[in-house]
Each structure stands twice: as structure tokens, then as C-alpha cells.
């Protein structure tokens, strides 16, 4: 615990930044270097806070990409799993974050560019189906309107989690926390193994995430059918081999990138 201004947990809690940072982390916020004061606070208090949060059944994670977040591993602290639109939009934004063309604007992109990128990678039809899962027969215009609406809502929720900054009506800034969406494909091993490892750590769950929640916190129900209650968060478990086999060919033809752990 060298080079820290905090000697005890009491010093950390007494810091005026603690309440805001604590609340933000508990609400799923990813804190990176752009939150300069918060980030410095977390770096300084990391050792003490890791032990502190472990008592709440969660881990304070600090990947080498330079951001912090709180990962619940028990049931003492509430957690949720990102919805399908959030996952799709998050991955599209991560692709843009990795794209060198985005460097020119310092990580600032237009919303329309993000949506068009998502549509280009997934294909417009697949995107429309993914964003309108309960509708069997959809009017094209209505379905596209739904896609735009859910895209905007996903962006808003990703911004609340610290993955992006919404600068104005049209622009947004990409943040390092987005690299979490690329975790399954970052390791040297196969994506299936990476998924298994991430599921075991409680970083993600297989299957679709939570049901979409509207601004009032109510479960959205596009089809008029009664929405099923969200399943309780699963405990970390080992994936059955038949599930893992589905991912066997995932990214096989590509050489995997190097991770910090691999380098060390």
C-alpha cells in the first residue's frame, strides 16, 4: 500500500469524494481517467476499497485499460444484465472506439454514424428484428422508428453507466469502459473459453439480458403480452459442454490479440 494518501478505510470514507464515487459505482458507473478526480481517488484508495467492497459481495475491478467498475459476485448488492439493445449498441460503439478513423476527432462521433455502423455490421434486417423481437408482423416504418427509439434509449443508459458521454443532441464521446464489450474476443484463447472464464467471474451471462426497461423503470411490453419477471442473477457456474460447443468456431480463423496477462 505504498504511495497512497489513505492509511485506513476511515480516511477513504472521510474523503469528500467518497459518497459520490461510491454511489456511482454501486449504480454500475464505469470510472475512467476522464473522471480525473474520481479516478485518482480510486487509484489511491484501491487496496482499501477492494477489501471494503468485498464485504458487500462485489469486486472493485480495475482493468489495464484504465477504468474502474464494481462487479457484484454475491446477492448483497443489486445487479442487472444489459439488455439486447444496450449490448448491440455497446459493441458497435466499441468497434468505433477501436477504429483509427475515430482518432481524428478525439473519440467524438455522431449518433447517426454509430447507428449506421451498427446497421452496416449487423445488416438492417437483422438489426430491425433484434430491436423488435416480439413483433411477428411489423410495419417497416414503425419498426425503423422503434429501432431509432431503442437506440437512443440504449445510448442514454450506456451514458449513465459511463461507457459514453452524450455531448449534445447529435454528438457523443466514446470512453475506455467500452472495451468491456470486447473482452470475450481479447484473449489469446478461443472466444468460447473466454466466455466461460467471464461467466465464471460473473462478468456476463449467456443469453439475452434483462427485459427492456423504459424511462419510468417499468418493463416495456411491445406486444401487449404480459412480460415475464426478470430471472434472478445467476451465480457463477461452469458452462455445460453443449453450450460451449456452440461457440467453438467463434473467431477460429483469426489470430487472437495479445492481452496484458498474456504479455506478462
Amino acid at each position, binding site marked *: 500500500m505504498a504511495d497512497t494518501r489513505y492509511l485506513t478505510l476511515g480516511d477513504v470514507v472521510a474523503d469528500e469524494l467518497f459518497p459520490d464515487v461510491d454511489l456511482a*459505482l*454501486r*449504480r*454500475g458507473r464505469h470510472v475512467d*481517467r476522464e473522471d480525473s478526480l474520481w479516478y485518482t481517488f480510486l487509484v489511491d484508495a484501491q487496496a482499501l476499497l477492494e477489501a471494503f467492497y468485498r464485504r458487500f459481495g462485489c469486486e472493485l475491478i480495475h482493468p*489495464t*485499460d*484504465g477504468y474502474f*467498475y464494481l*462487479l*457484484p459476485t454475491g446477492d448483497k448488492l*443489486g*445487479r*442487472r*444484465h*444489459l439488455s*439486447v439493445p444496450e*449490448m*448491440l449498441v*455497446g*459493441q458497435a460503439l466499441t*468497434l468505433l472506439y*477501436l*477504429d*483509427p478513423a*475515430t*482518432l*481524428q476527432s*478525439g473519440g467524438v462521433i455522431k449518433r447517426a454514424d454509430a447507428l449506421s455502423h*451498427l446497421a452496416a*455490421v*449487423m*445488416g438492417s434486417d*437483422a438489426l430491425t428484428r*433484434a430491436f423488435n423481437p416480439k413483433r411477428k408482423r411489423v410495419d417497416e416504418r414503425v419498426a425503423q422508428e422503434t429501432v431509432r427509439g431503442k437506440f437512443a434509449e440504449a445510448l442514454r443508459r450506456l451514458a449513465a453507466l459511463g461507457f459514453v458521454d452524450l455531448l449534445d443532441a447529435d454528438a457523443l464521446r466514446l470512453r*475506455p469502459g467500452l*472495451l468491456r464489450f*470486447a473482452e*470475450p*474476443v*481479447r484473449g489469446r484463447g478461443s*472466444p468460447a473459453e473466454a*466466455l466461460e472464464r467471464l461467466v465464471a467471474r*460473473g*462478468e*456476463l*451471462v*449467456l443469453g*439475452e*439480458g434483462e427485459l427492456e426497461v423504459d424511462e419510468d423503470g417499468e418493463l416495456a411490453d411491445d406486444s401487449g403480452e404480459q412480460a415475464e419477471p426478470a430471472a434472478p442473477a445467476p451465480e457463477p457456474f461452469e458452462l455445460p459442454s453443449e453450450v460451449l460447443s*456452440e*461457440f467453438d468456431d*467463434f*473467431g477460429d480463423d*483469426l*489470430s*487472437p*490479440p*495479445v492481452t*496484458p496477462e498474456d504479455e506478462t
Partner: protein
Amino acid sequence: MTEPAKDPQIMLAALARSHPVLELGTLDLCFLAALHLQAEGAALSAFSEDELSDVFEQACAIVEPRADNLKRRATHAIQRLRDQKLLARVDGAGVLRAGEFALTRLSASIVESYLADESLTRENLTQLTRSLRLSLAEILSRASQARDSDDWRNAVEAPLRVSVSDLVSGIERRQRSLDLEQQAFQATIAKLLESDWFGAVDQCLELLESTSRTLTELNEILLRDAHELSSSLQDIQEITVNAQAEGAEAAVERVMEQVDRIRAWGAARQRAWSEYYQYVHRYLCDVVRLDPSRALIQRLREQLSQHTSRPFALSVAAAASPRLLREIEPFKDDKPKVSRPRAERERPPNESDAIDQHAIVEELVQGALSRGSLGLCDVTQQVSAETPPELRFVTAGRVAQVVARLARTTLDRDRPWVSVNEDLVIEEWKLAKGGAHG
């Protein structure tokens, strides 16, 4: 003479009234640039028509080598440029001889902005600020010796408006060029990574470092020198205020604003660059170095395209917000309620003795007749005397009715109209003596 304050709205309205339009193609711009370069190279102040055509042909040979009808095209191009006030005839000879033409200030500015390669450097910024400091010191000295309005105008106002202002504008112009350079530089980094990925890291870092160094140096010079310039300008301003030299004071204020602007530019660019620098640094370390084969983007693209068939979802903490119960306070309504005073809509009747106006009139008429009145006018006068003014008109009618009933009238062919009082005129009836009906 003090320059009147310029109202932007008035100036814009005047500009809009003149319907200015600029339409310049590549050939026109190159033609103007060729004229500008030729004028500079050969120290020419104006071009004859033949010279203009020759320069146009030279420009055309480079821009559109296969073009024909060059003479005609030159004529059209010259006319186009003259219509847009980019080329002006300067000989004033009209039809007497072929004209001479020169570039206008507008065209010179356009060409310079394309050709000028004078971005802000440590050397030229130091040189410019040194010249500025010297000029301001000289103006300060002259200002302290100025006695009359001519002194203020020639020794202070004019140098501030022309030489000092031009020097500061020179810095601003170079700042804008540096902005453009930075934009191009950011595009260069993106292209380098796009083309060489891992191999471009060192080159990108070198570019980042050199630009950071340049910006830091420039900002330091700006901060230091702008402070000295502001100090000198404040000294001059103090003297102008004491001497009530309004024109000079306005000129000082204008230069002060320019100096503030160039200082603010330095701080803003430093801040923006710092953000960009950090972002690119992070990118190089977190993305490029950790993914030297650039496989991550492709793998992520594949993951995204297959997400609907193999979905997964990230877990995030989602503690509910603490529920803070507030103290319950009884609702206070300080506003006055909308109401009206309670009152009986129908008032109870007042008991009073009934007054029979007809009986009173009849009594008065009987009294008058018994006193021997011989005419209706006389009777009416007597009754009116006992009646309130507002009832006299009505009473006059009742009097006539009662008289007709109680007395006999003598018939006259003409019944004269006589005045009872100031407000009332009636037809006179003569009454027979002892003529009461009984």
C-alpha cells in the same frame, strides 16, 4: 476623429442589401493566384489586358491542359472576376485606351489564405511580440508627450490602428493556420495507423510529442508576452482616459481585445490538445500495442454480427437508490381562498307609510281652485311650488287631469302656451269662476 461604433446588425443589413456572391472555380482561383505570384515576383502594381490573358493561359495550361478557345475563356474569366470585385480596373482611362487591372484587397486575401504558409512558430511569434512591445513602448512615450488632438491622432491613435493592430492580426492569422495544421496532423495520425497499425506507433508518438512541445512553447510565449503587452496597453489607456482622448482610448481598447483573444487561443488550444494527446496515447497503449496483429476489430465485428444467435449480456452493479423519506409537513396554503362575502340576496322589505301622490296632487289642486285660481297655469304653478323639481313634469300632467275633472274650462279657439317656470311650458286653460264640478 473618433470612429463610430460598428453595429453588427447594421453592417450585416448593409452587406445583405448589396447581395454579395462569390463563385470561384479551381481555374479562377489559380488564375488569381498566378496574378498574385507574378505581381510579387516582378514587382508589378497592375496588369495590362494582354498580360492578364497571358497569365490566364499559363494557369489554364496547368489546370486544364486540353482546354481550347483560351482567348475567349480569358475574356470571360476576367469579366467574371471583375463582376465579383476580385479584379479592378485601375487606370481610369475608360475607352481611350486598353485598361490596366490589379487584384483587389478581397482577391489578395483569398489568394494569401490559400498560398500562405505562415503558421505560428516559436521564431515568428517571438519576433512579432518583440515588435509589438517596441511599438507599444514608443506609443506610450508619445502618449505621455501628446498635447493636442493632432498629437493624439498622429502619435497614438493611428499607430495603434495600423501598425500595432496589423501585428496582432498577424499573430491571429498564424494561429488560424496552426489550427488548420493541427486538423491535418490529426488526420495524418489516423491515416498512419490505418495504413501501418503497429508499425506507426513510434511515428505517431513522435508527432504527438513534437506538436505538444510546439504548443507548450507557444503558450508560454503567449502567456508571458501577452501579460507585458496588456500592461503597456493599460498604461497607454490610463493616459488616454486622463487626457479624454476618446479616439485613442477606443483604439487601445480594440488592441486590448485582440491581445486577450490571442492569449485565450493559446489556453484553449493547449486544453484541447491535452485532451486529444491523452486520448491518442491511451489508444496507442490500450488498443494498438495490445493488438499488434489488428485482429481485435475483426473478431469484435464477428461477435457483433452473431450476437443475436449467440447472445450474452454484461453484468453491472445496479443498487437501488437509497430511499430518503422526508418529514411530512401539513399542507400550508397561504393563498387567500376564492370566495365572496355571505349576504342575503333579497333584503327584507322596510315598513313605511304609503304615499299616494295622486291624492296629494288632488288635494293641492282643490286648494288652489278654492283660492280662486282662474287658469291651469296658475294651478300648476301653485302645485309645482310644493313638488320636488324632478317630479314637476309628471305632476303637471296629473294637475291637468285633476283640473279637468274638478273644474270647468271656458272654450277658446286658441289656447296659448304659457310658461309655468323655467323648465315647463303648458297649454293654458281658462277656468270658469266657481266652476268646480261640485
